C-alpha cells in the first residue's frame, strides 16, 4: 500500500484489546513441541503438578489434574516434578 493511502483509524488504530480475558479463547500452545500425558493409575493426587505449572494450564478436579492443552506450552515442569512418574511426554506432530 502506498503511504498516502494509509488512513487514520482513530481509536481503532491503537493496540487495545477491549474484551478482558479474550486470550482464553485462543490456542496459546501452538508452538508446543512435546505434550504432557497424565497416567491416572500412577497418580497419587499430590497436586505438585498443579502447583508447579508456571502457566496455570492445569485445572484440579476430583480425578486429579486436567491439563488444558490450549494453555500448555510443553515446558514439562509437571513431568519433572511428578514424584511417581504419572506424567510422561509425547511428541507433537
Amino acid at each position, binding site marked *: 500500500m502506498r503511504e498516502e493511502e494509509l488512513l*487514520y483509524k482513530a*481509536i481503532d*488504530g*491503537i*493496540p*487495545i*484489546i477491549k474484551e478482558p480475558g479474550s486470550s482464553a479463547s485462543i490456542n496459546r500452545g501452538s508452538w508446543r513441541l512435546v505434550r504432557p500425558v497424565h497416567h491416572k493409575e500412577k497418580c497419587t493426587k499430590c497436586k505438585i503438578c498443579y502447583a508447579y505449572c508456571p502457566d496455570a494450564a492445569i485445572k484440579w478436579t476430583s480425578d486429579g489434574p486436567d491439563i488444558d492443552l490450549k494453555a500448555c506450552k510443553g515446558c514439562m515442569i509437571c513431568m519433572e516434578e511428578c514424584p511417581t512418574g504419572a506424567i510422561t511426554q509425547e511428541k507433537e506432530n
Partner: protein
Amino acid sequence: MKQTLITGNEAAAWGARLARPQYIPSFPITPQTECIETLARWGADGGLPNTYFDRLESEHSVMSAAVGAAAVGNRVFTATSSQGLLLMHEVLYIAAGMRLPIVMATISRGLSAPVTLWSDHNDFLDQRDSGWLMFHAENNQEVLDMMLIAYHVAEDNKVLLPVMVNMDGFVLSFTDEPVTIPSFEMVDKFLPDYAPEHTITPDRPVTIGAPALDEYTFFKAQNHVAARNALGVIEQVQDEFEKIFGRKYDMVDEFMIEDAELVLITQGSMSTTAKAAIKEMRADGIKVGLVRLRIIRPWPASAIKEALKNARAIAVIDRNVAPGRGGIMLPEIVETLYYLESRPIISSFIVGLGGNPQTEEKIKEITHKLMEDLESGTPRVEWNDVEEL
C-alpha cells in the same frame, strides 16, 4: 500577563504548571534537576493542588510510571537529560506505541564517555525514531510556549502521541531570560481538559499494547500516520496559540532568507547567536540567512523545501554526531532537497559537542567556508572545535 526573568528549567516548569498535569514522576539529573525541583517546591507550597508529585528510583521507572498514569487517563509531565533520557529509551517506544500523550521536557546534555555536563543534541536526537513528536526550542519563551502547544497537539484525537520539548542545557536551562508567563485563565482557554477515549479503568478493563502478530505493522503504520497528522495539527494549534497569546510560530523558523544565497541550518540556542552574526554579515553585504529546525518529528519536509528553494549553498550545522556517518540532520536535509530543480551545495559542519560554545566569530567562519564551497562547487564536511592533543 507578566514578564519576568526565569531560567529555561523554570520556563519548562511553568509550562507544565499552567497545563495542570495530574501526575509528575521525577528523577534528578544535571542539567534538568532545577526543573523538577521548581515543581516540587510549588507542590510543597500548594501551587499544584491537583498534581501528584512522585519521586522514583530511576528514569526507567519514571517513564514506566508516566506510561501507567497516562494509561489510566492522567495528564502527565516529566523531564530528564542525557544519560537519564537514554535510560528511558526502552519505555519511550512503549509510550508512543500505546499512543499516550505524555509531554516531557528534555534538557540536552552530551553523552558519556568521556563525561560531559554541557549541551549537545545527541541525547535528544537519539530518540528520533521512538515515535515521539520532537520539538526543539531556541529560547526560554519558546520553551514555555512549546510546552503548551505540545499538550494541545499530543492530546488531539488525530495525533495521540507523546511529545518531547527540548532545550539546550546550561545555555538555556540555567540562564535567566525575560519570559512572558501567561495566566491560568488564558491557558485554560487555549488548552482543553484532557478527556481521553482510551483509558484503563476498573469499570471498563482493557489491555493496551499487548502482543500483536500479523497486526504489528498496522499499528506501527498508525503511529506513523498519527505523526504525519501532527503536521497539520501543529500548524492549527500554533495559529490558535497566536490568537490567544500573540506569539507566532511557524513549522520552521526562517531568518533573512528571502534573498539569501547562503543559508545556515541550525537547531536550538545557537540559532540566536547565529542570527546576531547574520545581521552583522548582512551589514557587510553578505547574502546569508538562517533556517532553524524547531519541529524535528514529524519532519516538516515541505516547509523546509519551501524555505530552502532559492538557496545556492547550505551549511547544515549539526550539534551532534553519528560516528561513522556524520551529522545526524545532514542526511535528512539532503533527502528533503534531493528533488529540487536546482540542488544547492550542501556542506556539513559538526560543532559544539559537549557544550563547546558557538560564538558569532565561529558562525562567521562557517559562513566564509560555505562561501568558498559555493565558489569551488565542492561541499565539505568540517569539524569545529577539534583540539589536537
